[in-house]
């Protein structure tokens, strides 16, 4: 085993245990840690102190960009680059640029949302130290785990282990980096 472990993994038997343990880890001030559960647990994000997603600003930026692109596209093509009177209408009117702008708003919002999501969560990730541990198998089946990473500023092998034990964690192991 290398000198510095990736982190510590603790096992919990049921939902309330992992839920309350998460609250303790949150209150202890840890930032780089996560829960591994076989199914979504309502309210766990709050127990972990996870803030709301930061994706919405990306979506908004994408939407505004899409709308402007649509308007400028129609303006450029019909009022500047190739002026043509169609149906007695003005060279440019926001009215007929609207359907295009509207569609581009939706398209660019969708792209920005997906892109922003991948940018923020760091996916796709081809390797993660947790996958090396056998625990991940039970974490996908019938057990609950908390992983605290050693990259956390508060991480201290002895103290963190004590915290997990005190929070009710069993079978605490070091994860190989």
């Amino acid at each position, binding site marked *: 085993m290398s000198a510095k472990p990736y982190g510590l993994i603790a096992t919990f038997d049921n939902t309330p245990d992992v839920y309350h343990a998460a609250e303790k880890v949150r209150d202890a001030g840890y930032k780089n840690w996560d829960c591994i559960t076989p199914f979504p647990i*309502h*309210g766990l994000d709050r127990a972990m102190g996870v803030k*709301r997603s930061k994706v*919405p600003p990306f979506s908004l930026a994408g939407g505004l960009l899409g709308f402007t692109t649509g308007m400028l596209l129609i303006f450029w093509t019909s009022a500047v680059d190739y002026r043509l009177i169609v149906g007695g*209408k003005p060279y440019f009117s926001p*009215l007929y640029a609207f359907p295009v702008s509207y569609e581009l708003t939706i398209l660019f919002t969708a792209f920005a949302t997906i892109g922003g999501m991948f940018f923020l969560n760091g996916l796709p990730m081809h390797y993660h130290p947790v996958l090396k541990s056998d625990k991940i198998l039970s974490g996908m089946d019938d057990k609950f785990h908390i992983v605290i990473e050693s990259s956390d500023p508060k991480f201290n092998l002895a103290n963190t282990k004590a915290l997990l034990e005190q929070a009710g964690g069993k079978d605490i192991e070091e994860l190989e980096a």
Partner: protein
Amino acid sequence: MSTHAATAPAALPSESTSSPCACKALGVGVAGIVLTIIGLFVSDGHAVALSWLTGVTFWTAIAIGMLMLVMIHHILDASWSVVVRRQFEHGLAAFPWLALLFAPLVVVSWMGSHDYIWTWMNPDAVIHGGHTVGHDPLYVKKAGFLNLEMFTAMTALCFIIWIWLSARLRKASFAQDADGDLKWTLMNRKTAAFGLALGAITLTLASIYWIKSLEYHWFSTMFGVWFFSNAVRGALSVGVLLMLWLYNRGDLKGILNTNQLYSIGMLIFAFTVFWAYVTFSQYFLIWNANVPEETFWYNLREITKEGEFSQWGWVGMVILFGHFLLPFLYLLSYRNKITHTRIKPIVIWILLIIAIDLIYNIAPALKADHGHGDPLPFLSINLLWTATSIIGVGGVFFWAYLKSFPKAKLIPIRDPRINECLTHHE
């Protein structure tokens, strides 16, 4: 992110009396109606009739929106909205009273004052160009649809269908409070299945007869959809106000959580976009096709006969930015949807702008020079009668709601989806 309803609601039976409020609401209603009647002696009868039409249509639209939302809830087997649904069911109690309040408009039409409200009811009315309605090809072709008998029958049919659907939905839901039988849920699902179709047809018919036919030359296939989007958005806004009122009174403490508000806020947002889509489509298609039988409707609302930008043009701008852009940007934010003090002002604004939208669609039918001049301006004494009408009918609406309130439990406690609703999660 949910505030789990761990603390069981203590006051489940709504023994908290609502009668003092009910009397107050009725008082406001009667006051509004009396003021509108006084208006008959101050202003032209035609103007007051159109104001009354606006008032009744506004609250009928909200009741229709509630009806559609309850049925959409049942057909989709929605769980998050079980608690909100009960408030809508109480609101449905207003339909018989709305029918009663609409009746004067039909009676006046039968009494021979045909030109009071809908021009096409009077075949001898002289229209633009010098000939009469009875010789107007655009009327003759529509005469099978636009005649007094059909108008009366269809209006009656609409109200009968709404009252009947409401009675069925309410009966089943309230009966389930007592016995918890699953058959009531299934019955409501069946009612919703055919009721949604009936509701869509009747609300389209009503909007065409009551509002669109004020300018019977005009065509718009979007009109029923426009009315529906306003109706549902208004109902959701009233729903939010009722939920907040009950929460502040203490009834819904521990029941109403942020996720239900978030969901209802998202629906209001969705219908903001839907309204804009429909309204823009209507304008855009008419603008693009440039057919006189259609463009005149917007000309009346934008320019005077001399071609100057009119007061109605500004009202149109207020609707464009206030009905769409402002609520759109405001409701994008998560916090604005879940914070009580932030969602409240926007739903009140939305209700106000829906009223302005209805006025924009109805009031310009009233024109100077016995119907041959420009539409009377937005800011006039008629706006006062519109306000008193909306307040008057609104008082009766909430009186009906409050009278129904003690008839059932505060929330549908034996609905099979109630637990899912109380712990509703994003």
